[in-house]
């Protein structure tokens, strides 16, 4: 082979390796897919964030004991994606209860300025989040930026007073490690993972 050919071939191999690495081994082309791959691989410990529940009581986001926590980030005035996510979460709750899984579910508002306790209660009533297994809460303004950065939640103002954001169901294992992120409708895989964690 000519020298030029050998150089080019080397460059192609290096380039292909580089692109392979840059897509996490051809698994992630988007930031959202990358978030999911990287969460599963690094399993970061969830910092002691505190959320404010429906009764105004504060509690930790991390699980108590032998419990898996499923978190999704929402804002309550959302007309579309959070409503779907809310419906999905309700369906997920029903299935988890049917299977008797030790799970706590939290819908957490990332917009504490707009979402007062009454808005959160409305949202909870609308989707049947009775606080038993599934409750609705909001982040403390002090934790807001850190939490969004840690969970890699990105909300973009949509120009109509709402947001478009990367909705997902996040799993926190009993040790307080963030272990996975799934599509909100991906029931089978979520429940299988919860089963395996508990």
């Amino acid at each position, binding site marked *: 082979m000519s020298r*030029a*050919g050998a150089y*080019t071939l080397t*460059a*192609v191999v290096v380039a292909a390796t580089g*692109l392979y690495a840059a897509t996490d081994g051809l698994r992630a082309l988007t*930031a959202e897919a990358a978030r999911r791959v990287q969460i599963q691989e690094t399993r970061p410990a969830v910092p002691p964030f505190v959320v404010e529940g429906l009764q105004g009581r504060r509690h930790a986001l991390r699980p108590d004991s032998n419990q898996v926590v499923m978190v999704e980030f929402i804002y309550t005035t959302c007309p579309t994606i959070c409503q779907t996510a809310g419906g999905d979460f309700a369906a997920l709750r029903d299935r988890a209860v049917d299977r008797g899984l030790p799970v706590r579910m939290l819908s957490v508002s990332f917009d504490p300025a707009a979402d007062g306790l009454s808005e959160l209660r409305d949202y909870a009533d609308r989707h049947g989040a009775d606080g038993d297994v599934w409750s609705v809460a909001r982040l403390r303004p002090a934790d807001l930026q850190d939490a969004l950065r840690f969970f890699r939640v990105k909300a*973009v103002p949509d*120009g109509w007073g709402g947001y478009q954001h990367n909705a997902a169901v996040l799993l926190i294992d009993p040790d307080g490690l963030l272990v996975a992120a799934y599509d909100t409708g991906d029931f089978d895989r979520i429940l299988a993972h919860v089963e395996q964690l508990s």
Partner: protein
Amino acid sequence: MNTVLLSTLCFGAALVLQPMARLDPVAHMLLQYPVLGVSGYLLGLKMPTAPDLRGPLLVLGITCVGFWMLPRSLDAALDSPGMHLAKLVTLPLLAGLPLGMSVPRVGAVLRGFLKAQSLSMLGVLSFLYSHAPIRICNSYLIEDQQRLGAGFLWLAGGLSLLWAVPLFLGHSLMPDLLLQRKKHHDLC
């Protein structure tokens, strides 16, 4: 001298476009990216290159462009200051420059192949961005993503005209092709 000035102007334009790029993926990908690339490409045109290195330079340039076309790179450039800086450095120096050093100097068939491939890649991107049921970039709204998809199609259309018209008419808007024709006539 002229080239350096023009290249600096392009780079300056890219910096000016940054606030727009943050809000609008079309400005980001179809305005800021290209001017960054062009600022390096112009410099590359003037650089001497060993013939053996044209292939690797071409691969380097294409890979760098490919990397920045990944939706996650687009997001990363907005979310992380390090990636933002990397974009400003690598698009001119690792994409534009090596392409400027190689593309005008490879054979006509290979160059035509690269043009045809970039048209189909723009088509693929248009396909994906305009019809994906998901948001591809976390930083942008889905409507803007669809606009970007349409933008790719317009760009593909524009480029195909720019590239096909000279081939059809037999005289070129592109200086390097003109040069080749002149050489051909000298031979005859």
